[in-house]
């Protein structure tokens, strides 16, 4: 009978296993650091929402002095942070869900401000509402999102985009969906007109002022 080194395989297996556990713990430690980031983001969104509310109150009188695109840029930054959290923590995470809802409320608040700005200050700003879904027709939504990202980067001073998960059920969002008769994803509301299904870059560009 020849030698079999069970203990060698076992000890190396154990060691590999340990390293795996350490690795997972370590990365969780990093993500718990980023969970502090989450709290920060959460706070930021809340504060921002609050200050936007205040701001719009104040701004309604002096609205033409507000830099709309500056506001949008800050919001997009927040949105990207939430995306990262969603990727790390998963879609079903409560914090992520809450943040996304807050974020969409914030988007709505900002959208109202922009509308006001457009009317009162006589400015040419293109507003797009984008209703997407990660479940139904997800690949079309993804394509549409890609095109919109592109347009947003291409027209930094003439276009604001607000994206909403069509699945989301906040009263405010439901009202908007009802007003524009949005039924499925992807749908776009480009300067108050509804378009259902994927819209090409050329089509959207034609609709821009």
């Amino acid at each position, binding site marked *: *009978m*020849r*030698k*079999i*080194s069970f203990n*060698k*395989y076992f*000890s*190396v*297996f154990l*060691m*590999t296993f340990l*390293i*795996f556990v350490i*690795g*997972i713990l*370590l*990365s969780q430690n*990093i*993500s718990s650091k*980023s969970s502090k980031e989450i709290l920060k983001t959460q706070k930021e969104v809340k504060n921002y929402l609050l200050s936007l509310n205040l701001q719009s109150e104040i701004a309604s009188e002096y609205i033409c002095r507000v830099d709309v695109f500056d506001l949008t840029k800050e919001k997009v930054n927040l949105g*990207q942070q939430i*995306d*990262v959290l969603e*990727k*790390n923590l998963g879609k079903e995470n409560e914090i992520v869900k809450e943040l996304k809802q807050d974020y969409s409320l914030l988007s709505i608040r900002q959208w109202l401000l922009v509308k006001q700005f457009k009317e009162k200050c006589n400015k040419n700003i293109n507003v797009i509402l984008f209703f997407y879904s990660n479940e139904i027709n997800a690949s079309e939504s*993804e*394509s549409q999102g*890609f*095109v919109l*990202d*592109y347009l947003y*980067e*291409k027209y930094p001073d003439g276009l604001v985009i607000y994206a909403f998960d069509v699945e989301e059920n906040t009263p405010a969002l439901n009202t908007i969906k009802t007003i524009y008769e949005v039924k499925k994803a992807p749908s776009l509301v480009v300067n108050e007109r509804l378009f259902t299904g994927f819209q*090409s*870059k050329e089509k959207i560009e034609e609709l821009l002022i």
Partner: protein
Amino acid sequence: MTTIFDDVIIYTTLFFSLFSTLFFMLIFIENGKAAKKPKVKKYPKISIIIPAYNESKNIIKTIKSALNVDYSKNKLEVIVVDDHSKDDTFIQAKKMQGKSVKVFTKNHGGKARAVNFGIKKSTGEIIMVLDADTFPDKKCLKNIVGYFENPEIMAALPAIKIWKPKNLIEKCQAMEYTTMALIKKVFFIMGSMNCAPAGAFIRKSFIKKYGDFATNTLTEDFEMGMRVQSKNFQIAQSLDSVVYTVVPDKIKKLVRQRVRWSYGSLENIAKYKYMLNPKYGDLGLFFLPITLFGIGFVSFLFIYFIVKSIYNLIQIIHLNSLINFDIFPLIDFDGKITLTNLITNERTFFILFTSLTALIIYEIGRRNTKEKFRIEYIGYFLIYSWIMSLSQIIALVHFLAGRKPKW
């Protein structure tokens, strides 16, 4: 597109890689020192057999290097077997004929037959098979014969180094051989070395008892190794006995060589499949199964990730076609996000850890074979493994289809 299936594959791969790199590293660190070169009590007569086919350029140099080794001249003979070369190999070799050099020519029949012919003409106790493009180091024989003091050991292998590597492909192989020297040492420590390649020393009594080199396989050296193991004898791996060899300098040639090797492994594992059995100790329980699993799993991974990459590429092309490939506004859009994601990902940790272990294996191998450090290791790491995987798949496909790859 990341699915649970992807995660399973990635973590299996990471676990498997980490396990094997740790295994080889730890076993060597634990036993490497104890397995250093054994003391020599007596110097047996050695017959160096050089099979040569169309080697007129190298043959004189090889014979000279064989004669030049530090070993008692009356205990050394060199036997050149010209396999009916089309060039003047035989005439060149004849010039070197003398007291300890015998030169023969025979009808063309392939390397294994030429070696067997040489063995029949030999008078030594130990046979060294030396390819015509391989040169022994001066200390090669003295540093290895000690292993034969142990009657269990039927063959002993020198460490193989690359003769003056010039281009990147040769340098990559130099690094691979350095790593392999250590891995083969671990095979020996575990009593599972199962190949007898270029420069191998073999006890003639074993060949007399159990037959010549096989002529019906692509890798007669692997067959001989499996045969030694099947009879429950051992093959030793030395790190301080060195032979230099010339390696393929083009990717195409390299792929061909590796296809031949992988095919030969499969062919001979199939021939000796009864050894996939704990009766054959660590070899049967671990090293043979892991070789098979390695070939199968690597082939699967390769195909899977190629298909996946093509799918992703199509997706990217599709998305970019929607914006008429006007990508300039999008550049740097995702930079920050990607970086954050990469750092908080445990896979990165495992990949770094495995790479580090692999690097340590290379480093230990390098120190033990006194090789120079080569920065090209990084290139080796990224590209070279793809070439190896490709060769394995070609070999596997040939094997499953039941036809030998062309030379």
